[in-house]
């Protein structure tokens, strides 16, 4: 027998192992095509999404060029549009959210994975998931009538009277503004970061903890010396996924941020994010260039969130697939 045919027979055998139920049936062929089309539709959707947004914002892209990102003018009457305040608002409100939410989330995750007994862990995890399931518009309603007055009277006024030499805490306390938006975003990313952090901490093998305990470590030293370093990249991934959610969150932010278009150091001033601008102005946009500029804002938002999500997924995937975790 020739070398070549033996090779091809081996290849066929290998194929048969990989696809043990390959048959030549019409129903099978149709089923295969249908589910393959549905599977590939995920890819098509992603491509179409990017294409459509570029296509619809092309007028604005050609009109303003790169200046769209750096210009601070947003003037419907003069037909001049710049995204800088919206991009600034998106980044700053998300940053506030992370600063507030990350310590609490990681703390809660440590409690759930390292401290809580099982009878307490499950109900607590369930409640945290319920917080994630709250519709954004309901949080926005709560934000307008409960959170904003509280922020104005209990947070902004005292901060202003004691710390107004810091530019962040200067300016009239409106309630509606960057700080309220950051707070409501913190509430929204809290359950996400907590749930993922808890999962990656639970994936740390017990042998790691036991080794640390055997050295005479305290419970916190076990966590800081063994658990956290082991799942570091998973935690970073969790935080970045939370960031991705915060950047694109729309309704609750739109309802409490107050629709301001200035870049100011003060956190008390009304501001806007890319998502909130699109949400509140899209139906008012009366002419093509205006719509196109709003679509370009959406495109920029898509670009930022895609970047953040790709990064986060790569980090979380790496942890989830590392051999040690699978062995456990």
């Amino acid at each position, binding site marked *: 027998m020739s070398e070549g045919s033996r090779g091809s027979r081996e290849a066929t055998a290998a194929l048969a192992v990989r696809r043990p139920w390959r048959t030549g049936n019409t129903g099978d062929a149709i089923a295969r095509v249908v589910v393959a089309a549905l599977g590939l539709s995920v890819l098509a959707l992603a491509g179409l999404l990017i294409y459509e947004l570029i296509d619809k914002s092309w007028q604005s892209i050609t009109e303003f060029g790169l200046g769209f990102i750096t210009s601070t003018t947003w003037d419907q009457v003069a037909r001049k549009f710049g995204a800088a305040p919206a991009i600034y608002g998106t980044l700053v409100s998300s940053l506030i959210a992370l600063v507030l939410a990350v310590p609490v989330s990681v703390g809660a995750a440590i*409690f759930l994975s390292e401290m809580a007994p099982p009878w307490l862990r499950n109900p607590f995890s369930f409640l945290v998931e319920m917080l994630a399931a709250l519709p954004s518009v309901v949080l926005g309603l709560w934000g307008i*009538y409960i959170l904003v007055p509280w922020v104005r009277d209990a947070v902004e006024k005292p901060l202003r009277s004691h710390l107004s030499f810091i530019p962040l805490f200067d300016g009239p306390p409106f309630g509606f503004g960057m700080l309220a938006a950051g707070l409501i975003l913190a509430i929204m990313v809290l359950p996400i970061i907590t749930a993922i952090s808890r999962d990656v901490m639970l994936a740390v093998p017990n042998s790691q903890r036991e080794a640390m305990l055997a050295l005479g470590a305290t419970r916190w030293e076990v966590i800081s010396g063994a658990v956290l370093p082991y799942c570091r990249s998973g935690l970073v991934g969790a935080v970045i996924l939370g960031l991705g959610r915060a950047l*694109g969150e729309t309704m609750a932010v739109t309802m409490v941020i107050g629709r301001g278009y200035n870049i100011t150091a003060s956190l008390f001033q009304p501001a806007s994010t890319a998502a909130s601008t699109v949400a509140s102005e899209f139906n008012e946009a009366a002419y093509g260039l205006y719509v196109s500029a709003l679509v370009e804002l959406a495109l920029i938002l898509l670009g930022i969130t895609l970047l953040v999500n790709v990064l986060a997924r790569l980090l979380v995937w790496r942890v989830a697939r590392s051999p040690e975790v699978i062995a456990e």
Partner: protein
Amino acid sequence: MSGFAYRRRKTTSTLVLGFCAASALVAVGVLALILGFVLAKGISSLNVDLFTKLPRPEGEPGGGVANSMVGSLLTVGIAALIGIPAGVGAGVFLSEYAGARLGNIIRFTADVLTGVPSIVVGVFVYGMVVLKMGHFSALAAGIALAIIMLPIMARSSEEMLKLVPRSQREAALALGITRWRTILSVIIPAARRGLVTGGLLAVARAGGETAPLIFTALGNPFLSLSVAGGPIDALPLRIYRYATGPYSEQHQQAWAASFVLVMMVFAISLTARLVLTRRR
């Protein structure tokens, strides 16, 4: 070992663990705070009119949001009709057909798509459907929600289908059953609990979405049952409109509608959980 250093280590440990326990309490406390207000304010303004009457002209008392509830059922229904079968199909492809490389590309893309802001999906469907049809519609809103459901559904159904033991597939095929019949009558029934859970969670997610509806459903103060005929209302959309408006009468109804929406979303999420954990 000096007693001082040991005490300091113990103290640090206690303090940090105390902070962690407090953090968990904060997370749950925030939920209680929000739910408490929604319950208190919602129940006090809840009445039968909310479910049976249409919105009154602005500023006038009375009326309800029956049109929004019908609209929500219609749009989410359309979304479920498109998104769930498509998502399960994509899940079947990932678990039963796709090779390692293509499967990973699709999985990764689906994961990234779940992170795309829903408002971007709304703008996308506005361009793809609303502009092409020439008007807003329940269909456009349903498509937008279906696009949000698809990647979630694909990933969750793949995970559930993978849990079906390989031996069951082989047993069916050994009996001479074709592959597609095996999938339809052996694998999918075996995984149905998980698929139902995934579907319910996707519906709960879609039911609370507001942002993509702004440019696809638009809103409509009258009762509409038309799938493709014109603008339609939805509960989250009505809450948004009422909450940001100036009338206190509408604020009351926004709280009541929020109460209804939250109860529906929680009931669906809870059912999803029970379906999965119930023992045979």
